[in-house]
């Protein structure tokens, strides 16, 4: 999760700033938006298979926390980027004008006005993205997760991890065994609670962003 969040935060900040600040051409801006929505629409199994082919086949990492983290980071990229883009676009234009009129250049405006005031967008996007990543099984079942026997990662290559969604998936397949059903429902409850809490925490932040966008 930490890897996914790190990867996604860096990429989404870069994409959001590129789209809203650095790219002037509306056509290029539309291309970035289209790319994000396309990634968002990709079935997670496609991520899993492409990730397996690339990380296991091309890079030879085997099952690794890094492969799974990067894949999950890419999966939640659209959620985080769109939240951040919405936030940046809702920033009152007067702030950037006032900063520019004081002699701040574009980078200084980004660092001292745009990013600090967009932190809530990044936060809400991160929480929603994490809530989505928490429930994903397909991208990690081929690249990162094992049912049992994982230890704390000692390196990158052949360093699998245990993941709750994959755990539920395997338990569901074995639920005819005595005791498996109770553990299955327990694990499912924990996952649902996790997603619910993340979504509930993100809700007020998102509502505040929309309210500000509406009223300026």
């Amino acid at each position: 999760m930490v890897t996914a969040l790190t990867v996604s935060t860096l990429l989404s900040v870069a994409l959001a700033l590129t789209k809203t600040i650095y790219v002037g051409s509306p056509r290029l801006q539309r291309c970035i938006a289209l790319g994000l929505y396309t990634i968002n629409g990709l079935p997670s199994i496609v991520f899993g298979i492409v990730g397996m082919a690339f990380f296991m086949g091309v890079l030879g990492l085997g099952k690794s926390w890094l492969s799974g983290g990067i894949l999950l980071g890419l999966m939640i990229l659209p959620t985080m980027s769109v939240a951040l883009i919405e936030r940046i676009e809702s920033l009152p234009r007067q702030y950037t004008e006032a900063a520019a009129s004081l002699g701040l250049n574009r980078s200084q405006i980004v660092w001292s006005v745009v990013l600090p005031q967009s932190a809530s967008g990044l936060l809400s996007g991160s929480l929603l993205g994490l809530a989505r990543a928490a429930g994903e099984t397909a991208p990690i079942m081929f690249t990162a997760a094992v049912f049992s026997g994982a230890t704390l990662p000692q390196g990158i290559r052949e360093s699998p991890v245990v993941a709750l969604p994959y755990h539920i998936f395997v338990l569901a397949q074995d639920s005819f065994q005595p005791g498996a059903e109770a553990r299955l429902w327990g694990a499912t409850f924990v996952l649902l609670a996790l997603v619910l809490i993340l979504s509930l925490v993100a809700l007020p932040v998102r509502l505040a962003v929309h309210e500000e966008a509406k009223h300026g």
Partner: protein
Amino acid sequence: MVEAMLKPVSSLPVLAPQTCLAVEELSVLSGKRPLLRNIHLRIEERQVFGIIGPSGVGKSTLLRCLNRLIELTPQLRVTGDVLFQGASIYRTAKPVDQIRVEIGMLFQQPVVFPKSIYKNVLFGVRHQGNIPRKQWPETVERVLREVALWKEVAHRLHEPATSLSIGQQQRLCLARVLAVRPQVILMDEPTSALDPASTEAIEELIRTLKQQHTIVLVSHNMGQVRRLTDYLACICVRDGAGEVVESACCDAVFEKSQSQEVVRFLGSFR
């Protein structure tokens, strides 16, 4: 005398040494549609230069051309030139940020950043790096005194700037502009959102600032324009674009204007 003042600015002789800003054949286009056409102005140093005209003629657009803030609106294109102390601000190697430091701007609505009063005053200064950090507290005190806000906020400099009244916020914005030491201050209807008492305070400040700075003031308040400005340009729409229909000293425009558009616009204020 008055007739000489009413002569079109373009026919005046070569730039006098005391000319601070000169606008030369400036036009602003949105696509192919002109918003402002062929503007000529000459603004002398330590003068309050007023720009008046009906709503929507492009007064604020013209003001934003004077420090290249117009470039933040990508769909607008500027032709012609603006000379600041004899040098073009559009055809220059000087960074645009430096030009905006020298030609500061105060907006219609006070724009305070969600930071403390102290940090708001230093917002421009800390990015310029031309005032040593040790001198920052002195700078804050100096500019807050200059805008007559020091007594009101000295004991709460680290409180959020948003806790100030709108009038105080506008003076804080002016202090923030002054902190970067501009030579020219562009003011875009700076008192339109303020109550009479705050308006009076800002007007008093303009009178004081005029001794050290050149001020370009856009205002719809004709009483204020009459009280404050030395020289005036009136912009009206002709053939779908804003043009300077008259540029002369304040009294000449108000009392002896020969332009029907100006007479119609000023109406009862004459």
